[in-house]
């Protein structure tokens, strides 16, 4: 019989076994965060569990979470976007620059910039058939360089009040700074999460993401315009980076040439910690929330425990490997390159 069929000897109990390992894989993110929270509670106790600290975590997670959503959109199709960090920094700068030029509405320049970067990513990847890794690696470099050129190494600050005279590289937007504070930033992230869930689980676009991750060849055999869809995927991811840039700007209060550096790694790690296989085909918004939270909690817990920041990064790198090792669906891959 054609098609993937269980081989001889793979009887009902074999299927039950693979069902159980599937279930385990699906629950790894939840188990992981419980273990991480328990660990830091034991190590740091009250300081880790304090309301103040969890308020800090609630402020810290949203930017990463939205970047992880952008990554989830792309990863579900089996591709990857490592330009999200550069794109975030660039969009934050364009948002604040837009406000300098146009007033508050100028903030849409941030979303626009990220969406255009997504469009360029998608077009190069889909039309020129260059792998998403290479395409977005080039964009990571190019976009960061453009940001350095445009900003000329300087920063633009978001302030509570209009600057008087000397302090010209700033724009007054108290509402944006308010958006960056707790609880507003959390509410914003929760609203985006709800919309993202509907988008990912209930729309045709969301289903198509998973199907593309399953078999691009079959989609084109049945008349689905894969070329255009792949561009749209990166545009959607870019738009999500644009949303992230708004709250990131509100939280940090400045568009700077180095903003967002290495955030792409955290975004990929959050998706992987959320149990989404980097080979694509399926994924989960809620588990991505757990993944982003886990990553933030680990960084936070290690800081509180007094671990040197460099060692903290080592720990997060190890965590990333463990996450990917668990979320990998080994039946899908023949060779690893």
């Amino acid at each position, binding site marked *: *019989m054609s098609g993937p069929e269980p081989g001889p000897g793979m009887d009902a109990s074999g299927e039950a076994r693979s069902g159980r390992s599937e279930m385990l894989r699906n629950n790894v993110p939840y188990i992981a965060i419980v273990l991480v929270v328990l660990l830091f509670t034991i190590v740091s106790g009250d300081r880790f569990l304090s309301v103040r600290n969890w308020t800090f975590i609630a402020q810290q997670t949203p930017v990463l979470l939205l970047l992880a959503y952008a990554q989830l959109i792309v990863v579900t199709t089996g591709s990857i976007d490592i330009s999200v960090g550069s794109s975030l920094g660039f969009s934050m700068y364009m948002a604040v620059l837009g406000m300098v030029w146009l007033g508050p509405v100028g903030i849409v320049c941030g979303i626009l910039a990220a969406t255009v970067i997504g469009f360029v990513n998608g077009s190069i990847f889909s039309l020129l058939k260059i792998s998403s890794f290479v395409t977005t690696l080039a964009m990571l470099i190019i976009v960061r360089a453009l940001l350095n050129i445009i900003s000329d190494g300087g920063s633009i600050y978001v302030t509570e009040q209009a600057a008087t005279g000397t302090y010209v590289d700033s724009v007054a937007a108290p509402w944006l700074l308010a958006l960056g504070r707790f609880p507003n930033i959390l509410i914003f992230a929760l609203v985006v999460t709800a919309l993202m869930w509907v988008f990912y689980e*209930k729309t045709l*676009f969301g289903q198509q993401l998973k199907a593309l991750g399953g078999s691009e060849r079959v989609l084109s055999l049945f008349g689905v315009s894969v070329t255009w869809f792949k561009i749209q995927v990166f545009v959607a991811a870019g738009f999500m980076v644009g949303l992230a840039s708004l709250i990131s700007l509100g939280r940090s209060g400045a568009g700077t040439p180095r903003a967002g550096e290495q955030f792409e790694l955290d975004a990929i790690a959050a998706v992987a910690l959320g149990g989404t296989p980097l080979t694509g085909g399926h994924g989960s918004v809620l588990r991505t929330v757990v993944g982003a939270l886990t990553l933030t909690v680990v960084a936070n817990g290690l800081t509180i425990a007094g671990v040197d920041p460099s060692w903290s990064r080592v720990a997060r790198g190890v965590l990333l490997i463990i996450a990917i090792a668990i979320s990998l669906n080994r039946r899908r891959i023949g060779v690893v390159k």
Partner: protein
Amino acid sequence: MSENGGALLQVEEVAKSFGGVQALRSGSFELSRGEIIAIVGANGAGKSTLIKIVAGVYRPDSGRMLVRGEPVAPRDHNVGHMRHLGIEVVYQDLAIVPNMNAPYNLFLGRIPKRFGIFVDENAMRRKTREILEDLKVTTVQSLREPISAMSGGQQQSVAIGRAIAWGREIVILDEPTAALGPTETGEVERLMHEIRDRGTAVILISHNLEQVFRLADRILVVHHGLTTPAFPRSGVTSEQLVRAITLGEQVA
């Protein structure tokens, strides 16, 4: 019916190359409503390429194709248009998306929507149940599971059900029973008769000459990328057919 004697499909000297490889040098045949035509030929002769041109997967380098007497314009020569005209294929490897469920696979390329963006999952599940019941597939546990969790036979049923459900005019089957046991083969052959009786034309690619003699009204031989004129099943012995397949001899 029009002047062309009611031919549903006319394929006229279509050719297709891939890089330097001439997969199909010249393919011609006609197909009438409710007819079963078998395409036979050695491996690599160009059978799959020919039916993929009919299905709109490949645009022919030269030659043309008419559906109900209407030439298909080159810019319309794509899968979307052919499916719109009621032409569907059951591919050799079934062409299912393994990580998606049976309803998604059945509605691939024509997912029903609500409010323009949402998937109408209820409608899909309802229709899927109907189609699977018609095909007498009753052992499916869950329509929410990925189709890879189904048995190979069930996956084949979904692939065939998809073609029958949407293929009003022509259903193409590329070696559909090559990997099936006798019972399942009988079931697939019964389905072919059923859709023929409703007026749908069937194109069957098969290596099983007994099956070809059992089912086909006419037989088309492809040899080294060339088709020979199709002949009625009754006018040929199996020795003649084997010679035509292996040597490319014309069958008078």
